[in-house]
């Protein structure tokens, strides 16, 4: 029990919020309402899982939002040129992986600090996009783009299914495949991992590539919710993803975390804005409340590690 304290406490917080809503605003649980919240949260979940892996590896990636925007534009333009949707999806994932590989090459290959590398790529990709698109939306997308060409409700379910399957694969792989164990090992103690014959640079590089691929997929799943693609999309996504990971119990010092906790973190943060609306509170409190939750989560970690030291 004690081992999963953080994951459980986030789940309990989420449960309490849902309970309050069930009593005071049962309308919140209307299927259409829930589907809308979940489909908006699904792309964040994928990005948060990616960044959770990066953080477990004792790195950080703050270029997620910019990668996300570029991948969204690429996907929209590819669809506009008439590429079939499966290919569009592969293209989004592949371009994301390429951006991740660029970050990974600098971080793992040259040994540069990831905060600086991804700060640089964050600005570079964002500014390149602005210079290229001049703020112009990608419009006139084919009918097969929005909701994969399904009706809205079917499309929402397909979107959730795709995100859910990818999430479950990640959960499974992190626990049951050597590579997952290596992520924890490298994040806990890269030198010990190296001496045990693990290649920490390769692990770090792969994690960045995976982060990019997940961002690419997240970008596509987000883009299909709308009739056109906004080049400013994904602004601030890195903060949402990192916040969800931290709230979900991923230790910012690396080596510790569970993707189930990240899921709870994403859902908790995603429910706050609609909950405020349903509870008839002022919606501008959303950010402040999210911020407080993050502080609380980090403080809980700090308190626990202080207690553990004595």
């Amino acid at each position, binding site marked *: 029990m004690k081992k999963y304290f953080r994951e459980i406490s986030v789940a309990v917080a989420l449960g309490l919020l849902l309970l309050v809503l069930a009593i005071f605003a049962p309308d919140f649980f209307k299927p259409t309402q829930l589907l809308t919240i979940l489909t908006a949260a699904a792309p964040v979940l994928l990005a948060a899982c990616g960044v959770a892996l990066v953080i477990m590896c004792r790195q950080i990636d703050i270029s997620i939002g910019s990668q996300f925007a570029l991948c969204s534009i690429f996907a929209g333009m590819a669809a506009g040129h008439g590429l079939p949707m499966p290919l569009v999806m592969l293209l989004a994932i592949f371009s994301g992986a390429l951006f991740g590989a660029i970050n990974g090459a600098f971080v793992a290959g040259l040994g540069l600090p990831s905060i600086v590398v991804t700060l640089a790529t964050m600005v570079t990709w964002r500014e390149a996009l602005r210079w290229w698109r001049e703020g112009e939306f990608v419009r006139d997308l084919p009918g097969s783009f929005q909701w994969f060409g399904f009706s809205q409700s079917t499309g929402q379910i397909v979107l959730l299914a795709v995100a859910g399957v990818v999430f479950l694969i990640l959960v499974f792989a992190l626990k049951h495949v*050597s590579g997952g164990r290596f992520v924890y090992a490298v994040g806990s103690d890269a030198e*010990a991992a190296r*001496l045990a*014959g693990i290649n920490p640079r390769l692990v770090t590089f792969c994690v960045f590539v995976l982060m990019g691929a997940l961002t690419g997929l997240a970008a596509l799943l987000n883009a299909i919710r709308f009739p056109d693609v906004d080049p400013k999309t994904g602004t601030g996504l890195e903060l949402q993803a990192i916040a969800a990971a931290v709230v979900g119990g991923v230790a910012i010092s690396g080596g510790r975390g569970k993707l189930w906790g990240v899921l709870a973190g994403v859902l908790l943060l995603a429910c706050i804005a609609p909950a405020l609306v349903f509870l008839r509170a002022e919606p501008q409190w959303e950010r402040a409340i999210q911020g407080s939750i993050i502080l609380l989560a980090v403080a809980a970690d700090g308190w626990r590690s202080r207690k553990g030291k004595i």
Partner: protein
Amino acid sequence: MPPLLQLSGVTKSFGAVRALKGVSFSLAAGEVHALLGENGAGKSTLIKVITGAHQPDSGTIAVDGETTGKLTPSTARTRGIAAIYQQPALFPDLTVAENIGLGLEKPSPFRPVRWAERRAHARELLQRVGANIDPETEVRNLSMPEQQLVEIARSLGAGARILIMDEPTASLTQKEVQLLLKLVRDLREQGVGIIYISHRLEEIFEVADRVTVLRDGESVGTKSAKEIDEPGLIRMMVGREVSSIYPPSESQPGKPVLRLENVGCSSSGVRGVSFEVRAGEVFGLSGLVGAGRTELARILFGITPADSGKILLKGDSIEIHSPRQAVESGIAYVPEDRRRHGVVLEMPIASNITMAIHPSFFPGSWLRFGKERELAEKYISDLQIKTPSSEAPGGSLSGGNQQKVALSRWLATHPKVLILDEPTQGVDVGAKSEIHKIIRKLAAEGLAVIMISSDLPEVLGMSDRIGVMRGGTLTRILDGPTADAHSVMSAALGQDEAGGIAA
């Protein structure tokens, strides 16, 4: 005259754990009082109580016969209590003078710094500890013993009359130890009271006036160093008779397993090393710190690959360019600093043990938890690792048990050659002799063991043959049973310097 420091009935609990149970302890001015005990006996807690880092639950502390109120780190300092730890706590990017000055001058952000005064003061203090160090040197350029001297100088400058030295010699070479012990004697002459903590009994006999042994948070007794001998002290520490400190060699060395021919690596300063290790043999590797022993181990393990010479394993020439290749060839390396390079503290014991064998133990890289637990439990019972379960995190174990986990990880690779780097550093006496027995047993099973150790009695007690390194190369190979401390030290120092060193 009241004693310099007097502790009476000091008790301290952490939750349900009673770390100190009514400990009394006294220290006179001009006395070296050694504090001994296995890890977890309560030494660190006692020191933390004296330095004000922990408040005792009950009991009193008196300095110069005057009972102190609540001690905090800063009031302890003003009463002249200072502690030197194994790892010096200095600012590496500042100069020696700045480090000393920061510890002594009243901290005030707006006070101008008087550089000349600061330097002169630092020079004077360094002279007092007999250190030939330029106050303008950056601390990062100093060796470990030099940094310790700077720390001692700083605490003397702060008016320390009670100096606590916690394992000050753990990372020093024999010669540096002698210099430090000389300084301890000098300080005693100057009337400083010294609490000296060390696992090395021979040092304690060399320098201490009295010895207090702690066991399970209680003081077992205080003896004059003259009226007790080494076996007697060990008996007091472990509470049982330890018949022989080192287990006898049982194995008959077999065929050569590893053979080095003129191996060198220019980047790590190792050159022209040749020797062979046979199956069933413990090959001790001795030498001063900086002689190239760890560097040689890192070459054999592919961390800094050799750039000259030949390495032969069972007669076949092999190339080792990475730890992975070394593992695959059958070479295992238990590194020196297990907290940093060995056991992953956050990970369960079972995961730690299988860490180096993923490709072979988990085919297709699918983890099999049942199989992993079985293996972990086998090693837990074979090496008698004290843990509630194989799922407990590595960081929850004591030093000796962590070392056994590190050892298990490498035994799981089924090595032909096992390289142990300081296998018992910082490990308590009981666990130390268990580790020695394990090493013997592994050798008896036909493993070729290379044991690097700075602990001279350990090298002499454990090795079938002893290789001595000096200046990056292997200078002598001695026969274990006939070698003595003097012959090893002479070889380690080179013939010319040997005369003046009492080993």
